[in-house]
């Protein structure tokens, strides 16, 4: 790459099994608290009008929860931020219900089911919830979805010189899809990334493509999460951020490419 891509991490948010928010997750990742992987608990979503809230599925609640947490931690204005949403599979429950209905004699799909089936549903509800009118992208790269979202955000930061909110999220499918795509539980991470250092910046990231092997996690349960949920491929990076550790980390990306990230903590 002619010049690696650089951005500063302003805030992190996380939600996953046994990881209810960033401060608790940071303790687990830093090794100062034990990891207790009970099922992911999705908090109620207060940011949408009741009519819209009733229509949202698990992935939308998941994505909006971490997005709002990251924005709140940075004291940023969600309505002014471009956003990148990346998910390997979107709303599996909704997809299952649609396929089941289409396999029946009636073939009736409700309008809500249909509009929730788009891969950018979380992005759409995010706009309704926050009033954000800037560009918003909705990406999928199967198991490489976190890396694809990170690159999309970094490129936008470089070219448009704007902060970007990255939200990567995956939720589990119900059966019978679960057997063919065994994502064990819901997991989401949000990073508010900026083009220059600010007072509250956590760390600078310098990202390049690499052929090196992706880093694994020593804790077998966290490593299982990393390996099974595409959005959790971010965990080795989040571990460095939690430990404020100056180091390089290699994240999983596409079959022939990984992402090498230099993490330089700001304090």
């Amino acid at each position, binding site marked *: 790459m002619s010049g690696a891509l650089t951005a500063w991490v302003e805030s992190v948010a996380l939600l996953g099994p046994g990881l209810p928010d960033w401060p608790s997750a940071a303790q687990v990742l830093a090794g100062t608290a034990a990891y207790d992987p009970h099922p992911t608990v999705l908090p109620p979503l207060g940011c949408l009008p009741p009519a819209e809230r009733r229509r949202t599925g698990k992935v939308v609640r998941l994505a909006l929860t971490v997005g709002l947490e990251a924005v709140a931690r940075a004291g940023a204005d969600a309505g002014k931020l471009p956003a990148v949403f990346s998910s390997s599979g979107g709303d599996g429950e909704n997809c299952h219900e649609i396929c089941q209905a289409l396999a029946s004699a009636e073939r009736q799909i409700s309008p809500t089911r249909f509009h929730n089936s788009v891969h950018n549903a979380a992005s759409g509800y995010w706009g309704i919830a926050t009033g954000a009118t800037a560009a918003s992208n909705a990406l999928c790269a*199967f198991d490489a979805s976190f890396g694809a979202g990170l690159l999309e955000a970094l490129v936008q930061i470089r070219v448009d010189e704007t902060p970007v909110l990255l939200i990567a999220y995956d939720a589990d499918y119900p059966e019978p899809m679960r057997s063919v795509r065994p994502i064990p539980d819901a997991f989401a991470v949000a990073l508010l990334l900026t083009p220059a250092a600010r007072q509250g910046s956590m760390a600078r990231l310098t990202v390049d493509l690499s052929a090196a092997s992706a880093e694994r996690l020593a804790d077998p349960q966290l490593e299982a999460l990393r390996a099974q949920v595409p959005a959790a491929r971010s965990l080795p990076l989040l571990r460095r951020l939690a430990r404020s550790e100056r180091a390089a980390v290699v994240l999983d990306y596409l079959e022939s490419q990984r992402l090498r990230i230099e993490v330089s903590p700001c304090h």
Partner: protein
Amino acid sequence: MTPLALTAFTATSCLGRGLGATFAALEGARTGLAPCRFETVTLDTHVGEVAGVDDERLPGELEEFECRNNRLALLGLRQDAFDEAVRTAAGRLGPKRVGLWLGTSTSGILETELAYRRRDPGTGALPADFRYRGAHNTFSVAAFVRRALGLEGPAAVISSACSSSAKVFASAQRAIAAGLVDAAVVGGVDSLCLTTLYGFHSLQLVARTPCRPFDVERDGLSIGEAAAFALLERPESRPAAGSVLLLGTGESSDAWHMSAPHPEGRGASAAMTQALAAARLAPDEIDYLNFHGTGTPSNDAAEARAVAAVLGTRIPGSSTKGATGHTLGAAGGLEAVICALALRHGLMPGGVNTRSIDPALGVAYLLENRRAPLEAVMSNSFGFGGSNCSLIFGRAA
């Protein structure tokens, strides 16, 4: 932004395979829409089905990607020697330096819909031959095209409903500007499936007769399918006269409603305004507008308001969805290629099927083809979730 050259491009839709067939249909003001005979669908509607898609077979080593959507992708890649042009570029630049951004809304979901009819009656399990990664997953089309073309650079699917394959031009343009890649394959592939046919039907947005964008009696859209691709590269210092350039991109969000546009076209206006700024063009320098123009009452009304506000009421424009149907996640890519053909041949395609322009819309909608030298044209693509993208293409002098 720094302009990029479309050094190769192609499109396959119900109008035909490749640029020759597509342009001949546009020149002849023909529609490819026909009464729906797709699969077991019993809806009384017209669709833009590509003939012969299921006669295609993926090469043996790519069998894991077998599905209608990837068969359509392969059919599309082979037209106009597009695949050869990409391999030549990858040979020159290195396969790691060529990125891939494709748009799709439903990828290979048809395979899943069909597999759900064959679930094990006892356990409910999907049949053993069902392929999640190669067919169902939204990324499947990009994984397939990446392997088929031998590319090793960054890749992603952008899936924001009907803006998907317009937005790939913006993402690829940024990736080239940032130095992440030197060239990019962009495009869109979306194929007929039951989810979109019955889904749009549930929203009462599907027309019974072939769609009539901007008509006073317009009553919905017709669904189509397409594969469209372009190869984006930095132009030579003096691009060859007549070559097609990407001049500007604009993206916005409505922040309004999941399945209805902002009534004043707020997000559409923002996308068009940004694209003009990126291209450093004044509104009156756009010679032709390819409307999103789905043919639904609300889309065309909102888009007309936005166009009148940003480009004025006299810009000649048309929607080519009367000819191709709404190809959803492939629409942005297909209409980008139609814009490239318009620039190359100096032809503004008239909107077919439309008989009587809705006077309330106040736009200069073309009912007939018009020939004129074109310097810069705009294409609009808007999707569910309030996702908007406008692209500006130009012709090198």
